[in-house]
């Protein structure tokens, strides 16, 4: 499917984004700029406190930047964020869906919030694709971690988003379930031309899904490139070793 399917080449444009929570404190995000093209996946990597969650929160409009600009799907998030949000979605294991509601009820709630047409058919299709059928009438709080992840993914796909932001989508999943989720994400991206921004600590996942990676440290991009490019430049065997070089400040040694 064409990268222009959603009407814009760059699903996301971020220009010199800065977030400083309080005057005098170092910025949590410091001058971040990048673009995300439709039909591709961009990885956002960094240690704890590197600024990944802050960045995602700003991209979603949940957090106001101190300065800088975010344009999502052609809409400036400072002035027109609701138009963009209708075509975006988000998933994080750290934000729950209401536990007392059944899976179907949760999907209905978000289907209404996102204005999904043919909602019941959409839920039925997602239930089939993501294998929710067996527990779709059960309360979301009674599900296993793997089942909750599939439900969270269904919620994230309910509006057929053109831009998907994922914060550690496979955290705490067993390898089999994690692989299953990654396969679905790849399929969705390839079928729809959706752009995906992925924040993850799972380097194998990033290597598999992402065409380009931003390495963050203390709110700044300290390096970037494709996973293969980074691994080659650092002379390492995999992205995890590159991550450790950057996190521990041993980059010069690695490059020497």
């Amino acid at each position: 499917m064409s990268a222009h399917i959603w009407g814009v080449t760059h699903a996301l444009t971020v220009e010199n984004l800065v977030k400083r929570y309080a005057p005098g404190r170092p910025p949590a995000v410091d001058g971040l700029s990048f673009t995300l093209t439709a039909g591709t996946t961009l990885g956002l990597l960094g240690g704890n406190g590197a600024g990944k969650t802050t960045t995602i929160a700003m991209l979603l409009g949940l957090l106001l930047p101190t300065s800088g600009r975010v344009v999502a799907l052609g809409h400036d998030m400072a002035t027109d964020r609701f138009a963009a949000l209708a075509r975006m979605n988000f998933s994080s294991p750290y934000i729950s869906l209401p536990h007392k509601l059944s899976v179907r009820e949760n999907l209905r709630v978000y289907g209404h919030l996102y204005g999904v047409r043919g909602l019941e058919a959409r839920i039925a299709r997602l239930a089939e694709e993501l294998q929710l059928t067996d527990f779709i009438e059960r309360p979301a709080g009674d599900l296993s971690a793997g089942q909750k992840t599939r439900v969270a993914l269904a919620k994230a796909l309910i509006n057929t988003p053109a831009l998907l932001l994922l914060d550690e989508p496979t955290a705490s999943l067993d390898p089999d379930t994690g692989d299953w989720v990654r396969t679905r994400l790849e399929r969705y991206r390839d079928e729809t031309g959706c752009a995906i921004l992925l924040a993850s600590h799972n380097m194998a996942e990033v290597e598999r899904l992402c065409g380009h990676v931003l390495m963050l440290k203390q709110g700044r991009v300290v390096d970037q490139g494709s996973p293969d490019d980074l691994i080659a430049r650092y002379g390492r065997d995999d992205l995890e070793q590159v991550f450790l070089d950057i996190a521990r400040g041993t980059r010069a040694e690695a490059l020497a």
Partner: protein
Amino acid sequence: MNAAALRRVWGLVYRHLALFRRSPPRIIELMYWPALQMVVWGFVTAYLAGLQNDVTSIAAGVLIGGVLLWEAALRSQMGFSISFLEEIWSRNLGHIFVSPIRPAEMVAALMTMSLLRAMVGVIPAMGLAWVLYAFNIFSMGPVLVAFFAALILMGWAVALGVTSLILRYGAGAEALAWSVLFGITPFACVFYPVAVLPVWLQPVALILPAAHVFEGMRAALTQGVIAWDHLAAAYALNLVWITGMAALFMGQLRGARVRGALLNIGE
């Protein structure tokens, strides 16, 4: 409000209705306190009526009517605030705020839930008043609807203020959702005329829409007249309070987006 906006409002209302469907204790809790208040104040009324042998002034239902109307304000405020807190307790607020629902639509959904919760709480208490004490609050006539509406509006104004404090101070401020309107009760003059208050305190009462509603209720019950001046004052004050509290809510929502409070408001 267009069809898309109405659907987003319905989405949030549906979320709360589904919660009630799966949690009968929540429905029972809605009815419990208004019914208990009704029983207690009903017997107090009966006792005082017997003591004073003055059925016309007391047993005419000033106390019982006050309880029923004040419950409407309490349930309205709590219904709004607690529906908002439900999103915090379920750690769902992040999903709501990154969906396309506008703040005004969210407020409309919370108001709808507040109205439904108030009706579920107050209507059984009205039935109890009729069955146990032969008190029919509808004897006031159509003006009763205006009284109820004014108190529901006041409940929403207070709830917007409480929600603003929750946005500012996090879940630590959630106790206000239950307590804040009880603190206003003495100044709302639910069970006695404004004139009973010390002169210096009367202006405090008169800036509250509720005090005007209860002055109007007493006039309707004891004199059979509609106090249009009090009714007008109640609605004018509601307009001022709701405008002010809506501005506060929007300000605190923006502040929460600056501080990042929406990311961890439940903690």
